């Protein structure tokens, strides 16, 4: 099971307590993890990536295993530690704004 850590505002929006455990069919990628996340929590559609273009929103970043994965191709495989559930996949809101 892949563990996904969400920013507080999105946890509140989707009424999620703690991290999300997701089973991802096929290869685990940023796209397939977000597909599974949005399928379980439809209200998150449009909050992390654009509804139509599927582009990551500008003030949202992806991290795992101490690496910034925000600019990785959406279909690139995620690190093995994320796939095994040993390390979470972090969805982070940028520290910016007011």
């Amino acid at each position: 099971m892949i563990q996904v850590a969400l920013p507080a505002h999105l946890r509140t929006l989707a009424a999620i307590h703690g991290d999300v455990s997701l089973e991802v069919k096929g290869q685990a990628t940023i796209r397939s993890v977000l597909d599974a996340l949005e399928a379980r929590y439809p209200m998150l559609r449009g909050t992390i990536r654009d509804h139509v273009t599927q582009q990551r929103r500008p003030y949202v970043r992806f991290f795992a295993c101490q690496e910034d994965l925000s600019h990785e191709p959406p279909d690139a495989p995620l690190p093995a530690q994320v796939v095994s559930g040993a390390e979470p996949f972090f969805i982070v809101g940028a520290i910016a704004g007011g």
Partner: protein
Amino acid sequence: MSKVRVLVGTHKGAFVLESDGKREHWDVSGPHFGGWEIFHVKASPVDPNRLYASQCSGWFGQQIQRSSDGGKTWQPVGNKFTYDGVPGTHQWYDGTAHPWEFKRVWHLEPSLTDPDTVYAGVEDAALFRSTDGGETWQELAGLRGHGSGPHWQPGAGGMCLHTIILDPADPQRIFIAISAAGAFRTDDGGQTWRPINRGLHSEYIPEPTAEVGHCVHHIAMHPSRPGVLFMQKHWDVMRSDDAGDSWREISGNLPTDFGFAIDVHAHEPETIYVVPIKSDSEHYPPDAKLRVYRSRTGGNEWEPLTKGLPQSDCYVNVLRDAMAVDSLDACGVYFGTTGGQVYASADGGDSWAPIVRDLPAVLSVEVQTLP
């Protein structure tokens, strides 16, 4: 006894303020959606417990929330606003072509007859409608497509469709306003539209009497007289007696005719309220005195209303959707400020008192009069 519910959208959440008909003691609940910008909250006129809220964030985009219990609990509904067809371009601030991009919902206007039908005015300017309680949204593309759309240009706050008025006497007629394109009207339920800006004069645009390009800030109508419209333009307070076909200035003796909010008394269609603001570069009241101005003559002759409002060192603004009236007798008038106060008058504006003083900056105020 009747009750009043005030729906307040702020820079960091929504608040629901409730009182009995005396309007002296208020219960404050919130923040709902704390930390998110709540541009607007509005109730269905046919189901007072059905509320819609526009929730947005620079990080996570747009959400629409729906309540079926008067704001106690909320449910996120559809947030997919996709322009119809190829969106095309409008003018950017420098006059170059810029693609239409959805940013946020400024105003939600529930139908006068169906609680599941609601209109949304969005930035970049377009009008959307949902007929399933906000689950899905479809653009009424005839507005952007009527011809002048490529010439629209954003105001300083963005190119927003901020005003939606449904004609209670004619279900096919809708008025909308866009900064900085102007006012528009449909007479066929939103299929076709035309600009209704004749008589507006804006010295700051290349052609001051152009068909489009005017920075209309807000429009108000009394439901008993849907052909009479009152407008607060960027500069100038205006009036139309022919459903927007022509406008004339009614600024009269106002200390400044710049401002954002305008509304009409619930029982006196010739009594209107504005909050003059010093200028477009100084968004605070003239002389640092917060004054509502009331005209009982449909414009031109205005009296300042100051009792209970700060008359020194006041530098707040009152935004375009941040004034509303209840329908009790005497009419209650409400407005919110960028300083976080919501002021209420239970006597038609003669005297005022703050309901709350320390909310985040207020973006919108709506009022429900409940049995």
